C-alpha cells in the first residue's frame, strides 16, 4: 500500500495540475464528467475513477478534451498496477499529439511506466526524449527519476550529475538531495555526503513526508558519524529523530551504541530499555535484547546481565515458537484470511500472523503482491455484484416488455391507419364536391345547404303540380309567384356559390393538413414502435452478452487470486524462515553470553577461593 501511495505521489504532478484546468472559466459540460473521475481518483478509488473516465469517453462526453483524459487515464492505470495499459496509452498520446508540452509529459509518464516495469534502459531512453517544455515540478521529477535509475544501475557519478542543480524546494528536490547524498556515500565521498545529509536533515519539514525524510537523513548521518567515531555529532543527529517515526527504533539503538562508544554504558541503557519494550518485529529490538546484557556486563553487573540474557533467551524462544505457529498457520491458509481488509472480528485475535504482518510488509515485493491480491478480491466482489444486478435488469426488462405488450393492441390499431383511412375518404368526398361545384354542368346547387336543397325539391314538386293542374285551371298567378320565389332562391344560391366554394376549398386544405399530421404521427409511432422493439431487443442482447462474459471472467479472477495467494504464502514462509534463522542466531549469542558470564563468575569465584 505504501508503494501505491508513493506511486500516487509520483503521479501527483499531472494530477495536481488538473484542478487548474478545471477551474478555468468558462468551464464546460465535459468538466463535470472529468471532475467526477478526479473525485474518485483523489479518494484513491482508482478502479471507479478509471470506469468513470472510460464510460465518459465512450459516451462521447470528452470528444473536445484532446489528450488530458488519456494522460489522466494512463496515470490511473499506472497507479492501479497496470503499467502495460499505461504504456500503450502514453504511446498513443505521443503518436497523436503534436503539442510539445503534451509530448514531454507523455515521455515522462512513459519513463515512469518503463521504470516500474523494470525496463531501466528503456526508461532512460524515454527520459532522453523529453524536451524543454515540462513544468518546473515535472522537470524536477524527471531529474530525480533519472538519478534514481542511474543509482539502481550502479552509475553513481552519472546519478550525481543528474541530481545536481535541482532548482526548487519541492518534495522532488528534497528526495533528489537525499539520493545525491547516498550517491556521494556510495562513491566514498563521505564528507560531501554527510554535508548534504545535514542540509536535508536541517531543512524545513511541514508535512509528514518531509519529516520522515528528515528523520531518515538524520539516521543515515548519525550512523555514519558513529562509524567514523564522531560520537557527539552522531548522538546529536540521532536524537533529533522523532520518537514516533519509522526510523525511531534504529535511532534508539544507535544512541545506545554512541553512549557505549563514549564509554558510558549506563547512558546506553535508557534508550535501549525503551527500545526493548517495543514489538520484536523490528530487528533493532531483537538486537537490543542482546545489547542490554552486554552493557550491563560492561558495568560489571553480572547478575543483572545474566538475568537479561535469560530473559532474552525466553523472549527469543517465545518468538521462535510464535514463528513456528505462524508458519504452520500460513500452510493452513490462514495468511490469506488475515490479509483480508476486514477479517471477521472473531478471527482477528486468533491469527498469530496479524502481529507479523508489518514484518511481511517490509519484504520486497510483498506489498505489491498483496495489493494485487486485494485488487483481485475486489474484482471478484465486483463481478459477483454485477451477476446479481444483471439478473435484476433482465427481470426489469421483462416487466417493461410485458407492460409495453399490454399497450401494443392500441399501438397496432393506431398503426393500422383506420382513422387515417376515414379522413382520406372524407377528403375524397370533399374533393369530388368541389370538382362538381366547379364544373359548368351543375354549378348552382352543388354547394347548396340543406334548407336550400329542401326548398329546391319543394319548387320542383310545385312546378310538377302546376304543370299538371295548369291544363285544367288558370294558375298563372301561382306560377308567377313560384317562379319569383325560385328566382330568389337561385339568386341567393348564385350569390353564395363563390363564397361557399372558397370555404369548401379551405376545408379541403385543413383536411389535407390533418391528414398530413396523421400520416406524420403514424410514421413517428411506427418509428417509436420499431425503436422500442429494437431497444428491448438491443438491451436484451446487450444484457445477455455481458452476462455471458461474467462467469468466465469470474473463474479467471478466482484462479489468479488463488495463484497470487499461493505466491504470497510462499513469500511469507520464506520471510518467516529467514526470521527464524536470525532469531536462532541471536539465541545462540544469548546462550554464549550466559555461558561466558557463568564462566567468568565461576573463574572469579575460583580465584577468590
Amino acid at each position, binding site marked *: 500500500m505504501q508503494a501505491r501511495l508513493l506511486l500516487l505521489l509520483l503521479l501527483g504532478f499531472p494530477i495536481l495540475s488538473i484542478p487548474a484546468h478545471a477551474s478555468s472559466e468558462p468551464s464546460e459540460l465535459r468538466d463535470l464528467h472529468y*471532475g*467526477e473521475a478526479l473525485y474518485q481518483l483523489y*479518494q484513491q478509488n482508482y478502479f471507479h475513477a478509471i470506469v468513470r473516465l472510460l464510460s465518459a469517453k465512450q459516451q462521447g462526453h470528452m470528444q473536445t478534451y484532446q489528450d488530458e483524459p488519456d494522460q489522466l487515464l494512463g496515470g490511473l492505470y499506472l497507479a492501479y498496477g497496470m503499467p502495460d495499459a499505461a504504456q500503450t496509452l502514453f504511446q498513443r498520446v505521443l503518436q497523436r499529439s503534436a503539442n510539445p508540452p503534451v509530448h514531454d509529459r507523455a515521455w515522462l509518464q512513459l519513463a515512469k511506466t518503463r521504470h*516500474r516495469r523494470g525496463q531501466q534502459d528503456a526508461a532512460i531512453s524515454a527520459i532522453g526524449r523529453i524536451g524543454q517544455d515540462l513544468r518546473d515540478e515535472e522537470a524536477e521529477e524527471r531529474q530525480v527519476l533519472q538519478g534514481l535509475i542511474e543509482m539502481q544501475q550502479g552509475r553513481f557519478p552519472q546519478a550525481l550529475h543528474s541530481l545536481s542543480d535541482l532548482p526548487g524546494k519541492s518534495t522532488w528536490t528534497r528526495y533528489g538531495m537525499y*539520493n545525491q547524498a547516498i550517491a556521494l556515500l556510495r562513491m566514498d565521498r563521505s564528507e560531501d555526503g554527510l554535508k548534504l545529509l545535514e542540509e536535508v536533515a536541517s531543512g524545513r519539514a511541514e508535512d509528514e513526508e518531509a519529516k520522515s525524510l528528515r528523520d*531518515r537523513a538524520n539516521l543515515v548521518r548519525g550512523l555514519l558519524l558513529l562509524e567514523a567515531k564522531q560520537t557527539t555529532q552522531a548522538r546529536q543527529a540521532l536524537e533529533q529523530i522523532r520518537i514516533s517515526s519509522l526510523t525511531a527504533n534504529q535511532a534508539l539503538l544507535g544512541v545506545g551504541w554512541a553512549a557505549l562508544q563514549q564509554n558510558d554504558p549506563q547512558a546506553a541503557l535508557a534508550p535501549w530499555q525503551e527500545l526493548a519494550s517495543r514489538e520484536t518485529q523490528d530487528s533493532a529490538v531483537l538486537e537490543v535484547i542482546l545489547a542490554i546484557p552486554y552493557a550491563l556486563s560492561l558495568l560489571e553487573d553480572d547478575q543483572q546481565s545474566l538475568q537479561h540474557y535469560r530473559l532474552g533467551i525466553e523472549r527469543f524462544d517465545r518468538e521462535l515458537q510464535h514463528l513456528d505457529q505462524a508458519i504452520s498457520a500460513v500452510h493452513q491458509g490462514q495468511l490469506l484470511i488475515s490479509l483480508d481488509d476486514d477479517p471477521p472480528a472473531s478471527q482477528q485475535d486468533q491469527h498469530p500472523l496479524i502481529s507479523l504482518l508489518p514484518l511481511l510488509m517490509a519484504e*520486497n515485493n510483498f506489498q505489491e503482491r498483496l495489493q494485487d491480491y486485494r485488487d483481485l478480491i475486489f474484482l471478484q466482489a465486483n463481478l459477483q455484484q*454485477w451477476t446479481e444486478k444483471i439478473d435484476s*435488469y433482465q427481470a426489469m426488462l421483462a416487466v417493461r416488455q410485458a407492460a409495453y405488450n399490454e399497450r401494443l393492441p392500441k399501438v397496432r390499431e393506431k398503426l393500422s391507419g383506420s382513422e387515417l383511412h376515414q379522413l382520406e375518404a372524407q377528403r375524397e368526398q370533399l374533393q369530388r364536391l368541389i370538382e362538381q361545384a366547379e364544373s359548368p354542368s351543375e354549378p348552382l346547387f352543388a354547394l347548396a345547404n340543406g334548407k336550400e336543397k329542401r326548398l329546391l325539391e319543394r319548387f320542383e314538386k310545385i312546378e310538377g303540380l302546376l304543370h299538371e293542374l295548369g291544363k285544367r285551371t288558370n294558375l298563372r298567378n301561382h306560377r308567377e309567384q313560384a317562379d319569383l320565389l325560385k328566382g330568389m332562391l337561385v339568386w341567393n344560391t348564385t350569390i353564395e356559390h363563390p363564397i361557399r366554394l372558397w370555404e369548401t376549398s379551405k376545408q379541403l386544405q385543413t383536411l389535407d393538413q390533418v391528414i398530413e399530421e396523421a400520416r406524420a404521427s403514424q410514421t413517428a409511432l411506427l418509428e417509436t414502435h420499431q425503436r422500442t422493439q429494437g431497444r428491448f431487443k438491443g438491451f436484451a442482447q446487450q444484457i445477455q452478452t455481458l452476462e455471458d462474459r461474467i462467469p468466465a471472467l469470474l473463474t479467471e479472477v478466482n484462479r489468479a487470486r488463488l495463484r497470487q495467494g499461493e505466491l504470497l504464502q510462499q513469500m511469507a514462509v520464506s520471510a518467516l524462515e529467514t526470521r527464524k534463522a536470525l532469531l536462532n542466531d541471536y539465541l545462540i549469542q544469548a546462550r554464549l553470553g550466559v555461558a561466558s558470564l557463568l564462566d567468568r563468575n565461576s573463574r572469579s569465584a575460583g580465584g577468590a577461593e
Partner: protein
Amino acid sequence: MKKFLHITLALLCWSTACMAMAQEAPNPSQGLDDQVQSLKKSVLELNRELFILEEELLFPGNTQVSVFLSMDVGAYFKLDSVQLKIDDKELSNYLYTEREVKALHRGGTQRLFLGNLKSGEHELVAFFTGIGPKERDYKRGATIEFSKGVGPKFIELKIVDNPATQQPDFKIREWE
C-alpha cells in the same frame, strides 16, 4: 556493531531509493503479473459497458437528470452535508467524510444525484450545511427553476468563495 551499521546503511540506501520511486525488479512470476493486469483490464472494460448499460436502462436520456457538486477553494465554508429537493421531494441528504471534502477541494466533482424527471418545468432546492466563517454553524439554501427538455439534464451546484464578502457563495448552473 559494525555489522549492524553496515546492514542498516545498506537498508536505508536501498529503501530510500524504493521510497522515492517504486522499484520493480524482474521477477519469476511475470506470467501471473501479466495475467492480473489483463484481468484488471477486462473487468474494467466490462464495468464500462455495464455502467453505460445501467445508465441507459435506468435513466434514459429523455428523462435523465444529474446533479453534480463542485467546490472552488472553499476557504469560507467547511462542508458537512447537502440536502437536495426537486419539486419539494427530498432526493438526497448526503453527509460528507473528510476524504470526500478533500477530493472536492482538489477539483473533484461529485455526482450527487442521478434520476428521472418528466419533461417540463421543475424547481430544485439545495441546502448546504457546514461550518462557515468564524467557525459558526452555517446553513444556506439555493434554488433554481429549470426546464427539462428531451435530452439529459445536468445541473451543477457550486460552492465558491466570495472574497469581497468573506462568505461562501452557493451557485447553481444548468447544462443541457
